[in-house]
């Protein structure tokens, strides 16, 4: 019997199937996941660490984590996109927490002179582009004070208490704003969440 003509099963495989293949030791699956998610993860890491070179290291760490921990991935608990995003965020937050004041100053100086890498518009998928547009639009639609607490929690890695301390807003108010923002986003991004499941 002739094998069916499908030259690259990795390209057509779902994200979770690829993670499972990574768990079985497939480098091709890692490469495919990298192609799918690296632009998004690199953008996230840059936003958090504010340094392109360090962001690349963060993303590499995230994929090494994927390589080592793929067998522990549970698709019932989170989508692959969310898992990778949270791993990347976690690594990036670790970086900024470990920085000294001097390092922060250097990073800021490097940022000023950094020309950046090529635009990702060509690399990002159409689906990702649409998803990005929706997420940004919904975030922009939040009241400033709600967007601020989400930014500080997600990109700044601050706890609710730390946000309260930094902004001078009562802890209860921070919690209320966070809860309201999250409820609005979940309702507004319902379709995007479904796509991830």
């Amino acid at each position: 019997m002739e094998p069916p003509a499908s030259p690259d099963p990795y390209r057509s495989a779902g994200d979770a199937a690829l993670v499972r293949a990574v768990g079985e030791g497939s480098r091709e699956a890692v490469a495919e996941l990298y192609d799918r998610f690296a632009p998004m993860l690199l953008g996230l890491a840059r936003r958090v660490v504010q340094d392109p070179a360090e962001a690349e290291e963060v993303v590499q760490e995230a994929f090494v984590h994927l390589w080592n921990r793929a067998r522990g991935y549970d698709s019932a608990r989170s989508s692959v996109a969310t898992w990778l995003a949270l791993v990347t965020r976690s690594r990036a937050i670790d970086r900024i927490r470990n920085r000294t004041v001097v390092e922060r100053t250097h990073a800021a100086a490097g940022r000023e002179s950094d020309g950046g890498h090529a635009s990702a518009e060509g690399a990002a998928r159409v689906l990702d582009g649409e998803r990005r547009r929706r997420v940004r639009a919904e975030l922009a639609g939040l009241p400033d004070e709600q967007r601020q607490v989400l930014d500080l929690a997600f990109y700044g890695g601050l706890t609710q208490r730390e946000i309260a301390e930094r902004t001078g807003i009562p802890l209860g108010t921070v919690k209320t704003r966070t809860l309201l923002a999250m409820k609005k986003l979940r309702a507004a991004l319902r379709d995007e969440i479904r796509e991830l499941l």
Partner: protein
Amino acid sequence: MTEPTEREDRAILEALAALDAEAPEAPPRAGDAAAAGPWGASPEETEAQETLRRLYLETLGLLAYAAEPAAPPPGARERLLAALGEGRGRPAEPPAAPRAAVVPFAAPEDPEHAAGSGFEEPLRRPAPRRRGRSGALAALAAVLLVAAAGVAGWLYLELDRSRGAVARLEEERARLAERLSRQEALIHRGGQIDGVLAAVSTPGVEVCPLHPMGDPPVAPGAFAILYMPPGSGTWYLLGSNLRPAEGVYLVWLNTPRGNVPAGVLESGKQSILELDAAAFGDLSDLTSITVTVEPSPDMPEPQGPTVLYGDEKMTVL
């Protein structure tokens, strides 16, 4: 029993807590003993809680898309693959191609040795046989053919295995989506029930009972009650004992100006229709509410039989 709002807030806090988990791939499930806390949730509540936590975790994950994406610099992918090392599990090797038959050392051709010379001659490779060039090529071709067949077979098996895995994951995804829909429906219904309870307990709430119509009744045993809390733009119509019909139960708000379709009341032992009263304009001249059986929810005027009718408003609190 946990209130829906409290449950939702708790799910958000759990999702936020998962952001800082040591291993984000395994945040605590809502039903884990440590996460259950003092709520003492039932299995259904636990499942709903887990679904909510998952939804909010995905919401947080989507925030990553708000950052401007960046193309990886040249060579980054290759550096990553090189950094993965050889230490962990590697892909299964394809089955080895059949090896060329091992040719044993030939017996010496020298008759002297053949006859035995009094001592054992060490085995030595015989002088190469003269074979035709075409014969060697044919043998090589045969070996390559067998090897190619082996690789093709392995590829086919791999492909088949991958497809099976993808199919299983698709099924899993479909099951998850269905479960999510059920949970969302439950949550939505929970929210509706909250709204009804709030409406019913509002001081000055007006109530209009809808009685079954027809002799014999078109829908025996069915009835409904419309709750109109003062100062609220949301009314609730609670239907009871509406059996599945050949068509839909369409609700009409009737005024001297005409009949306004107000939505479909689902069949079932209990059903709720939430009415955005403000969307229907001025209803101060509302004379009655009817429920008819219609072939479509898009009917401009009632044409089917009237199942329920109510024209008597009363204030109960």
